[in-house]
């Protein structure tokens, strides 16, 4: 079980290894807080859809499994969407259309099809947690890189916390704005992935 969890984080890392879930990973990571928020939403959907699909795996007919998976996943996505709109409205607005778009994150359907349809519930939940956490960590790292370079602060939460000053006031006023614009997203993930490959090669 522990291995399932750890595999999910590193060996099967959704973004760095499998290169899926790229859209939210690039689109919402203008700040570390947004990255965590998106990651949490994905963890919730993954864990619950994995659990439910695993519980129902003997009932779900093979021919109709894909539409059933889609219905289950999109139900949890809608639940997350409305819950976020109600209880964390500023975050929900920041993430925008990418919350309902969790539905088409191929990683989630992939886990349903490739893992939880074939494994018992406790393993499936662990798998969901691991994969989700691996995704969240990457989003958090991307958000951290982009926020620190692009805005000079770290972990700012709109309306609650202005964030830690990282390089001091002078940098904040003339930060590398490019990093929070679209090209910065591509750059950040390229660097992260390159670093990951580098570490793997020299291990």
């Amino acid at each position, binding site marked *: 079980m522990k291995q399932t969890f750890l595999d999910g984080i590193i060996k099967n890392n959704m973004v760095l290894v499998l*290169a899926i879930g790229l859209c939210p990973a*690039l689109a919402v990571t203008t700040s570390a807080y947004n990255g965590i928020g998106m990651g949490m939403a994905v963890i919730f959907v993954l864990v619950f859809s994995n659990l439910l699909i695993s519980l129902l795996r003997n009932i779900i007919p093979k021919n109709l499994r894909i539409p059933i998976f889609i219905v289950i996943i999109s139900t949890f996505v*809608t639940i997350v*969407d409305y819950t976020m709109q109600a209880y964390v409205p500023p975050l929900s607005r920041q993430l925008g259309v990418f919350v309902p778009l969790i539905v*088409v*994150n191929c990683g989630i359907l992939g886990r349903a099809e490739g893992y939880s349809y074939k494994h018992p519930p406790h393993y499936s939940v662990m798998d969901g947690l691991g994969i989700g956490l691996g995704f969240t960590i990457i989003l958090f790292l991307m958000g951290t890189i982009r926020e620190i370079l692009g805005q000079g602060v770290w972990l700012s939460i709109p309306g609650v916390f202005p964030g830690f000053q990282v390089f001091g006031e002078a940098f904040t006023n003339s930060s590398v704005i*490019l990093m929070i614009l679209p090209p910065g997203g*591509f750059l950040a993930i*390229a660097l992260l*992935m390159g670093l990951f490959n580098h570490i793997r090669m020299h291990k």
Partner: protein
Amino acid sequence: MSLFLLFISAFLVNNIVLMRFLGLCPFFGVSSKIETAIGMGMSVIFVMTLSTIITWFLYRYILIPFDLIYLRTVVFILVIASLVQFLELFFKKQIPGLYSALGIFLPLITTNCAILGVAFLNIDSDFGLISSIVFAISSALGFLLALVLIAGIRERLENAPIPDALKGLPISFITAALMALAFLGFSGFMGLSL
């Protein structure tokens, strides 16, 4: 906004891939050859336009009148998945020529978030039918453009000396970053912005 401006905005200024980050999986997945990139782009144009029309009518004339907007995500993704399945069968039986060209890309399209994303954006922007269709076509053309451009660059990168750690996807991301930088230059073009 006039339809022409809407077209320019969705095609270049707010390019769906490079500026809005929708449809990145196929953007990096099927962009190693120009030929496949064109096939994928064509399929997206076709499916995106059709799915936009269908979801627009569904939302306006079924989900809103019956107060079912909370089923939006479920219904849209099911509609898109069935549409793609249907098109695949239809092409296979009726238009084999088109099927051999586009067929292999169709199954990949269901999980292309650009399709669902455009359907959502149409609703969030409160577009009418014509605007929705124009938005869908121009977004899909923007997708095709970005895909063909990066495929062309990647074909040339094949023989370039690249550090080992950056081979494969990382260098494609850097390429995309430079393309996005170039597209950023379109903002402000004709008074349009991101």
